[in-house]
């Protein structure tokens, strides 16, 4: 820890924002039943992680964090395309967007 620079105030703000975003996403994911909203919540969590990456990268003076964020954005875009497609398919099957309509996978 000693070799690391002390986090500056801006970084702390970024990290707190990241934590708030993640928590919002998590709570949203857990309480909402609408699959599109749940999906958006996962995106929120993902971006919270991305923000944390950038903050820590800045703190360590390492560009690796920013590189990862670019990857995350790419993957998130692909994922969004796929997931929304899936959601549309699921909606066509059951005529509802509720996640509770899909419980067959339980044991």
């Amino acid at each position: 820890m000693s070799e690391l620079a002390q986090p500056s105030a801006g970084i702390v703000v970024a990290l707190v924002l990241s934590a708030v975003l993640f928590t919002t996403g998590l709570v949203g994911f857990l309480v909402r039943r609408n699959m599109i909203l749940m999906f958006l919540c996962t995106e929120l969590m993902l971006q919270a992680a991305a923000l944390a990456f950038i903050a820590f990268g800045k703190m360590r003076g390492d560009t690796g964090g920013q590189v990862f964020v670019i990857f995350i954005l790419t993957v998130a875009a692909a994922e969004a395309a796929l997931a929304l497609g899936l959601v549309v398919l699921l909606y066509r099957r059951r005529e509802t967007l509720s996640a509770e309509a899909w419980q067959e996978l339980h044991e």
Partner: protein
Amino acid sequence: MTLPSLMLASVLAAASGDAAGHGSLADAPIVAATAAPELAWVGWVLALPALSAVACVLLAMLRVRNKLPAAATVLALGGAFALILKLYLSRGPNAAPVIVHLWDWMNFGWGGGDWKSFQADVSLYIDSLTLLWMLFVTGLGTLIALFASEYMESERGPGYARFFFGVSIFLLAMACLVMADNLVLLYLGWEGVGLASYLLIGFYYRKPSAVAAAKKAFIMNRVGDLGLAVGIWLIWVNYGTVEYGELFQKLAVGGSDQGGWDRSLIPFCLMLGAFGKSAQLPLFTWLPDAMEGPTPVSALIHAATMVTAGVYLIARMQPLFMLHPDAMTTVAWVGGITALVSATIGMAQYDIKRVFAYSTVSQLGYMFMGLGVGTAFGAAYHVFTHAFFKALLFLTAGAVMHGFAGQLDLRRLSGVRKVPGFGIVSWTMLVGCLWLAAFPYSAGFFSKDLILVQAMSKPQFQILGWLSLATAALTAYYTFRVWFRVCAGPVSYVPGEEAHGDHGHDDHGSQHHDDHGHAFHPHPPRLAMNGVLLLICLGAILAGIPGIQALRGQHNWVQEMVYASTAVRAAGVDHVTTPVAFGMDPHKVVSVFGIAASLGGIAIALWLHLLDRRMADRIRTALLSNGLTRWLPVAMENKWYFDEIYHALFRLPLWVASHLLHFFDRHFIDGVLVNGVGRVPTVLGRLFQPLYNGALQGYATTMAGGVILVLAWVAWRWLGAGGAA
């Protein structure tokens, strides 16, 4: 006092004086056995029956339907007899023992010295006791096989070959038993004769009763064999060897008391084996059932030879038994009581073969008593005479059964003597009966006398002596009950139902039944059967020669042979000159009361079963109608309920326990334990199953909860560590 009995008494005194002369030998060391490789040809005594067994198998495979199997067997057994005779003639009755090594069997070692090797080879110990036994085993074996060649002719084909295969295997095993030079080879013969007995008792295997009898014989013998095996182990532990030659030398100097078990147990273990094989209390119930086998088998195996193996074992191990007087006393009492109990059962049986079977058990009891009270000569001589007259009795019973379509009920046969062609059968049967009843001056009389005198001479055995005199009277009674019923009286008979199985073929069976429907003609025995009966009858008469020789004060070869063997140790005779009863010494007591018992028994049989046959029934009815005596005929006719008691005491609990164990095994060990352990993963899975309800949020909550728990744990450890630091 009659003249003959006086003569006899004096002569017997002379004979026992002779015995006393030999008695000094008892303290002499046993003659060491020497190796005799030049006698390797004796191995053919084993090889010949083995070859005839193989020949029988081959003939069965070739589906031969003639009498070749019988011819092969008779030739082989006759050859074995000739070899034994040659050996006897070349060596004389009292040559020193020799050992003929044939090949190594169970033989291995782990270092030099005593107890560092185990040697049980296929080698032969030939001394006079061996020869005495082998002479009558092979001789009677040959004759009975010849008899069977005619008796079994309705079975010609595979069954015929199977029968003679069994006989050959029996002779092979018996030769191993008698000629073995170590206890393990003796054990081989011991179980081998058990196998032959199993195969032959179950010869008519389609009859469930025959199969059950065969199984019973084998299993009861196994109980005895267990004792024998334990005895062998104990001998090895204590003396470091199981070979006779070495063992007898070591017995003289005494072994080492090794291990937790005292060596005084050895004779009791061996005794158990002997009692099993020789059908003594408590293991005698298999022998009467063994009569399910063909009659020649009953004659050969279950009367003349195999059942005397127990007597042989104890006579052979005499040096060991003599070290333990308690063991000898036990042998004597078991023998005496068995003789009495089985005689009482024999009195109440109606099946001729069963009567003779119980008489065999009874006579074997006499032999054991003879060993126990210390006259190995008497025991061996009784074995010898009994072999002839009992084989004769069984063969004549077989001839009657053969002739009357399997009829064996003595209430349904009468006056057979007058049926054409049954003359020889009836008169030879009379000889057998007289000998069994110990009629004065018959061979059976001499041999039984020797045993009784010895018992009477020892104060501790006098009660046993009186008991045995009573048994002798019973013997005479039930023996002549058979003869007077079956052979004497007016001619009348009911043919049997063939169901006894002597004619086992389906195709023949129906024909015979038709015959019975119309007119039944008994078919009398032909040349082979009659010839054999006459020859064995002659043998039975000649078997008295040693007794007559003794009468003339001459040496007799049976005595010499017994005293030249290891059984010499039993030769000590206590001279009791003090009167035991009515002012008479033992010899006089035995001869007077013995003759009285024999004649009295015959007379009662004559009265009840020939002169006034209804009297027997009246007595029985009278006994039955009286509440106090009712139990007696009932118990006797039901064989004192031995089978039922054994069933209740052993078989039933074992059966129940087995079922319980099976249940326990299937439902507890496999069901609860094994499948229970197998179900642990499933049960654990079910415990956490509610978490996996299929709802997406449920999984997410679980996951988040898990992450929080992990974080909390990390934080706690970190804080805890920080706090500690």
